[in-house]
């Protein structure tokens, strides 16, 4: 799979443009971005009470435009009517930074847990409608979060999720630190996306420091990212098997995942690859012998995974449990800004790996899709299975030559604000950082899971309550990196 590199971006990194916008032109400017085909990919508040600022990010191929406006008296117009995907961002900014968004009515609490239930749930009324509350502590080994289902009988009419039980204030804890030191906070936001978060942070940091990743750096990071995707996808397919009580499928995938974890440990010294990505450098060394041996191990793993997947794919009773459950249609996926395997299962083609000049994906890299873009549990599983194939391809290609330690080259221009977008196993993760004399002034992390929670709630409506755990597992979103 040695393909020519993509030549779209002149530099081996994503482009960033920071644009100041007058408060009165905020909506118009955002509307223009969206009209030009750019995709909303996050918004965040910065500054303090005296000089509050609000920024929205729009992705356009491998570049990102950051629109920023000054906020007067903590109030500014909403954009949720223009782009529904901004809903959680505005709700979070209200709860954590006190911003009010005119026209965002009602502005329901998201992070604030001190309010009454009525302040964060959607009123659903009618004959026989009642609420079922679940969590924050769940029955299995599951992260903490609270769900409020509005149901009639067993049918879910609407789901309100309340996360942020795990809010540790990691972004705030990172502020004031020297830029390279902030990476550990981004990484610890989430164990299962640790590499993605660390690479996104490193790339954002390098763009403000004027560092360009070398060939070796790009190869090493791509290898780490795909190793992360590998164990996650194996885990997530297994989890969906558990969701339908298919124990042998669950156990077979658990065993495959364990093999991938042991490989991680052997290659990078940590089962979750913690500490393997850093700012401006890469310490990963794979001499040709180790690379060759790993390649062999991965080929065996690939064969076994394909064999086990075939058993899941062609078992009639398994498929009967997966089809038509938890449907997220294409329009809803696009409207809610879904990303990653969930978006691709619904027919959207977005995959940030195609827009990552700072990494090492071939120019013909294409997002994998399911056989049918039905947007149900079955399609989300299929996307992961076909992505496993491309992950094995990329890994095999990268391991065809040794990987050496290297440092970034200090020849790039310094961006005013650091932004990086990296495709995690759950979708695009966006990392933004602003600094004062190379100390973090603001760190913002919007992970693939954050983008997808509203889509999960939408996909759950109209389904049976007992199917929710399965639908939940088919998205397999993290709570940790949403809550931060």
């Amino acid at each position, binding site marked *: 799979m040695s393909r020519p590199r993509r030549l779209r971006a002149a530099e081996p990194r994503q482009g960033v443009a920071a644009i100041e916008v007058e408060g009165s032109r905020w909506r118009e400017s955002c509307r223009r971005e969206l009209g030009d085909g750019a995709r909303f990919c996050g918004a965040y508040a910065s500054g303090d009470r005296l000089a509050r600022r609000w920024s929205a990010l729009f992705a356009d191929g491998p570049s990102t435009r950051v629109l920023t406006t000054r906020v007067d008296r903590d109030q500014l117009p909403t954009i949720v009517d223009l782009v529904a995907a901004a809903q959680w961002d505005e709700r979070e900014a209200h709860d954590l930074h006190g911003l009010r968004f005119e026209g965002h009515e009602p502005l329901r609490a998201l992070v604030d847990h001190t309010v009454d239930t009525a302040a964060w749930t959607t009123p659903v009324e009618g004959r026989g409608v009642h609420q079922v509350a679940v969590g924050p502590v769940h029955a299995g080994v599951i992260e903490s979060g609270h769900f409020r289902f509005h149901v009639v009988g067993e049918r879910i009419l609407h789901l309100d999720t309340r996360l942020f039980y795990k*809010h540790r204030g990691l972004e705030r804890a990172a502020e004031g630190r020297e830029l390279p030191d902030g990476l550990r906070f981004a990484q610890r936001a989430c164990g299962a996306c640790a590499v993605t978060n660390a690479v996104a942070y490193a790339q954002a940091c390098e763009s403000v420091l004027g560092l360009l990743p070398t060939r070796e750096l790009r190869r090493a990071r791509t290898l780490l990212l795909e190793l992360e995707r590998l164990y996650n996808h194996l885990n997530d397919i297994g989890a969906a098997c558990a969701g339908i009580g298919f124990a042998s499928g669950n156990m077979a995938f658990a065993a495959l995942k364990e093999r991938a974890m042991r490989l991680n440990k052997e290659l990078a010294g940590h089962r979750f690859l913690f500490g393997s990505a850093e700012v401006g450098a890469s310490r990963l060394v794979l001499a040709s012998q180790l690379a060759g041996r790993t390649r062999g191990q991965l080929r065996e793993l690939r064969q076994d995974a394909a064999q086990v997947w075939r058993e899941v794919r062609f078992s009639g009773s398994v498929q009967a449990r997966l089809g038509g459950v938890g449907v997220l249609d294409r329009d809803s996926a696009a409207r809610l800004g879904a990303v990653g395997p969930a978006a691709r299962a619904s027919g959207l083609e977005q995959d940030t790996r195609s827009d990552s000049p700072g990494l090492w994906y071939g120019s013909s890299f294409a997002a994998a899709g399911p056989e049918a873009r039905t947007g149900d549990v079955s399609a989300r599983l299929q996307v992961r299975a076909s992505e496993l194939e491309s992950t094995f391809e990329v890994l095999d290609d990268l391991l065809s030559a040794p990987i050496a330690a290297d440092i970034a080259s200090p020849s790039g221009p310094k961006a005013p604000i650091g932004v990086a977008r990296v495709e995690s196993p759950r979708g695009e993760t966006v990392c933004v950082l602003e600094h004062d004399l190379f100390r973090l002034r603001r760190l913002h992390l919007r992970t693939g899971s954050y983008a997808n929670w509203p889509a999960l709630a939408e996909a759950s409506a109209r389904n049976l309550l007992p199917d929710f755990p399965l639908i939940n597992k088919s998205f397999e979103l993290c709570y940790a990196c949403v809550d931060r």
Partner: protein
Amino acid sequence: MFVLLRHLQRVRREAALPPRRGARSLAIRHVDAGSCNACEHELTATAAPQYDLQRFGLDIVASPRHADVLLVTGPVTTRMEGALLAAYEAMPEPRRVAALGDCALGCGVLGAAAELAGPLDRLLPVDIRIPGCPPTPQEIADAILDAIPASQSPGSP
């Protein structure tokens, strides 16, 4: 299905797990009090064929009322403090508390002080400490198995 079972049999053979010791059991209730989720991954992995902790009579149970051990991950956020204490209150005596991972033990990258109520031993008596970030499934298995004799009482099933 046949292929799948044969595959699992092979995995099992290759894992060559040591025989189980004694016939005892321990019911564990897990509470995530603000982890990064890697500790949960490793806890779940103890059920994978390569470890198969269940064969020692160890089970993750659905309710704290059924549990002998409360296994806690994360630095204990202020927002999880209430639910954590409620879970502990619901447990029958004798009960044990285990801190899983460095976060629960109060070290490592934790977060902003204002958001944290932990570490765990500030809130509950910690009997079992499992350090690591995250501890490996084997380390988790060993720590819990070591705790079995101590947590058995004549009255427990």
